[in-house]
């Protein structure tokens, strides 16, 4: 029998449609059908100035906008060979790790809700609300932050940001204990997740699976540690790896990542260097308001950047970043004008979705929900 699941289904995390061929309750074939959220972002990017692309990158993955901002900015900065001041790099790291926590919280809440543990959802969204307030405080927006700019960040964080962030980071470790108390040794949770939707390390490599899903299958690879960017090499953190390769393993691994991210965010906050939050590059980075009112040159640059953008030397780069879901990569090609010739996003979710058939075939229909949840997909990023 062919069963249609989605696109409007609460546990497909967006608008994923699955065509499931089932024999009794066993899944024989699973064909994902995507594209319901395709908005042509890659095409739109080609019609915008470089700095105008930043808000578009937020909308690719609405659970980790800062990671996408960062990847794009790093790619363009690599094209420009622009040095970023240490304070901006640390701010980026700190906010990226808070974004990772935010994304993992939504994942944990909805994944548990899919499987039937409702309380966890409420707990996770309690902390997520605090995080969104922090993001609003620093960028003015709760979700579509657009806080990172080419050459740094858009402004220095307000004074009360630091106390708010500290309160959150200090409390968060206990909060993770609360989630673990609800799930880690819960017999129903273990029954639903252990030895379900198994994936081996070889499958991960051949199917292009990255991120926590791959690390739960024993692949010791994390771009933050192995190909550091934005001064991640200055931080001390562990990369959790397990060999179980099942839904339960992925759950345990992401919970450990929550703790590690919290620790990185704390290190970034405590070691935050003083200094400028954006690069000294008059023709690329918007000048301070004060300079615009006092210096003719700054006013001219401001006018030029806003009205005609800035040119980027011709060339092509690929920048990969460890997003909460895996390797998020931006391929940016410039032809020497003020608009990117081509922007391509390597979506971690699209590659991870390739593995879904492997996860589901031969398993019970009820496990499909657990499998989808465990690879943590965001359809906005898949369809773009």
């Amino acid at each position, binding site marked *: 029998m062919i069963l249609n699941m989605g696109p409007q289904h609460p546990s497909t995390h967006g608008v994923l449609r699955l065509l499931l061929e089932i024999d009794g309750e066993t899944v024989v074939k699973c064909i994902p059908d995507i*594209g319901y959220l395709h908005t*042509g972002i890659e095409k739109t990017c080609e019609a915008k100035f470089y700095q105008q692309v930043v808000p578009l990158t937020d909308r690719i993955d609405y659970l980790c906008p800062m990671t996408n901002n960062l990847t794009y900015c790093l790619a363009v900065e690599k094209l420009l060979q622009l040095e970023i001041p240490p304070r901006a790099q640390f701010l980026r790291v700190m906010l990226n790790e808070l974004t990772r926590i935010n994304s993992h919280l939504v994942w944990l809440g909805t994944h548990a809700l899919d499987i039937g543990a409702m309380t966890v959802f409420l707990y996770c969204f309690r902390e997520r609300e605090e995080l969104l307030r922090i993001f609003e405080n620093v960028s003015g927006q709760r979700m579509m932050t657009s806080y990172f700019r080419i050459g740094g960040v858009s402004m220095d964080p307000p004074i009360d940001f630091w106390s708010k962030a500290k309160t959150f980071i200090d409390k968060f470790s206990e909060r993770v204990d609360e989630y673990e108390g609800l799930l880690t040794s819960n017999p129903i949770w273990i029954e639903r997740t252990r030895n379900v939707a198994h994936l081996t390390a070889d499958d991960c490599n051949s199917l292009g699976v990255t991120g926590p899903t791959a690390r739960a299958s024993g*692949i010791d690879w994390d771009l933050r540690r192995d190909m550091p960017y934005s001064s991640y090499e200055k931080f001390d953190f562990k990369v959790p790896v397990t060999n179980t390769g099942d839904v339960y393993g992925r759950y345990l691994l992401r919970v450990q990542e929550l703790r590690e991210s919290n620790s990185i965010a704390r290190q970034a906050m405590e070691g935050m260097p003083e200094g400028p939050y954006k690069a000294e590059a008059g023709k690329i980075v918007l000048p301070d308001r004060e300079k615009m009112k006092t210096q003719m040159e700054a006013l001219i640059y401001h006018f030029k950047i806003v009205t005609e953008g800035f040119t980027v030397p011709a060339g092509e780069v*690929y920048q990969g970043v460890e997003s909460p879901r895996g390797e998020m990569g931006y391929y940016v090609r410039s032809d020497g004008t003020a608009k990117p010739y081509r922007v391509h996003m390597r979506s971690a979710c699209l590659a991870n979705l390739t593995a879904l058939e492997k996860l589901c075939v031969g398993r019970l229909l009820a496990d499909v929900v657990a499998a989808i949840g465990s690879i943590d997909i965001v359809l906005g990023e898949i*369809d773009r």
Partner: protein
Amino acid sequence: MPVQPAITDIDHLKGRPAVSALQSASLLESAKFDRNELTIYVNRADIKQACELLRNSPETKFNFLADLTCADVFPSEPRFEMIYNLLSHSRKERVRLIARVPGGDASIESIMGLWPAADFFEREIFDLFGVRFVGHPNMRRIMMPEDWEGHPLRKDYPVEGYR
């Protein structure tokens, strides 16, 4: 920091295992090292062989297909550039392979046999650029509706679409 000019002289790049491996198998067309990234151009007919060599050779060990995409350089010919982004976990290195595909015969061999990960990437390129992958078992549109006309990411397709 001013942008350094790209190194395109193959003799200068011979020290890189990917360049020397492809050159000794005479699969290399040209190469460039720009902004700390290595790009190797290969012939369209050789792409699968080149990928296989880079994956299996003990000097290169590019075991992971990170990304596969396309760029349209319309109106010049050959029009499409297929961009393969390979990653080596053990050597912590990336390489970019580019194969040029003419607009008149927009097709290239599929590498799904090497990396099943290429499945959705190749379908996406077929959908948005109209380049056909020979040997792909399910060459259908993936993002756009089945009955859509045209390939939106081509440069001669208007940004606002046809109205």
